[in-house]
């Protein structure tokens, strides 16, 4: 039957995670809440000037009857435009307790420099 070739899973639900973005002298810091996402489920990629984070969370309560469901198994996905200010080679990512922290260092040329007055 044709049905065997079709993927039986419904299309993935994509949810936009909430983020904080703050800028310091040396870097831009982005925090994204990704509850239920582990290291294996997280993907961060840069395409041109667009940075995309994508975290997959599986359904809970396997093998049990659901009494109440407010949490949706989904992919948390969000994209951001990164300017030339950011040194892409030095971007760091930390995932702890469902919170992703991305540290985007500013390239040396764009950091504030003190100019000595002689």
């Amino acid at each position, binding site marked *: 039957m044709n049905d065997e070739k079709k993927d039986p899973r419904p299309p993935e639900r*994509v*949810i*936009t*995670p*909430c*983020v*904080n*973005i*703050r*800028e*310091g002298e040396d870097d*831009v810091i982005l*925090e994204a*809440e*990704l*509850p*239920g*996402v*582990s290291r294996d489920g997280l993907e961060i990629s840069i395409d041109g000037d667009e940075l995309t984070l994508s975290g997959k969370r599986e359904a*809970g*309560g396997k*093998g*049990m*009857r*659901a*009494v*109440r*469901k*407010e*949490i949706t198994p989904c992919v*948390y996905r*969000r*994209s*951001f*435009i990164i300017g030339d200010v950011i040194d892409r080679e030095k971007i760091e990512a930390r995932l*702890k*307790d*469902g*919170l992703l922290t991305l540290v985007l260092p500013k390239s040396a040329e764009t950091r504030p420099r003190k100019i000595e007055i002689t």
Partner: protein
Amino acid sequence: MALIRYRHRPDWDPFSWLSDFRQDLTRVFDSRLSPWGEGGTDLLEGTGGPRIDIYEDDENVVVNADLPGMKKEDIDISITGDVLTLKGEKKQEEEVKEENYHRIERSYGSFQRSITLPAPVEADKIKATYRDGVLEMVMPKRPEVKPKKIDVTVK
């Protein structure tokens, strides 16, 4: 149906405005709009507490709660009868000046949510773990409410 507030964002280029607009449209159909911001995936409007799932089988009741980026010591779990109460405070990690923020969507502050369990559980055997920002509580059902197999003898 909740109305979407359109926010003017002068520092975003047209390309990203378009992609955010598309996401805003998706949110028309996402009934879980949070009063604190666009995202708000963890705090549920109206209850002031985390999103939860409740599961059960013959042996246990399991409650999962979305509480990303918290410290274990800031979460309080208590149970009275068949009502489970989650309390806590989501604190900001460090003192950061507001003017340095481009965007604040994460919500902070105290929360409290009481959940009526589908069956009475043994309070002293509750196991709670916090992993990937999800608080999972596995609670064994009291023996008297577990299903018992009754043998039928045929005479």
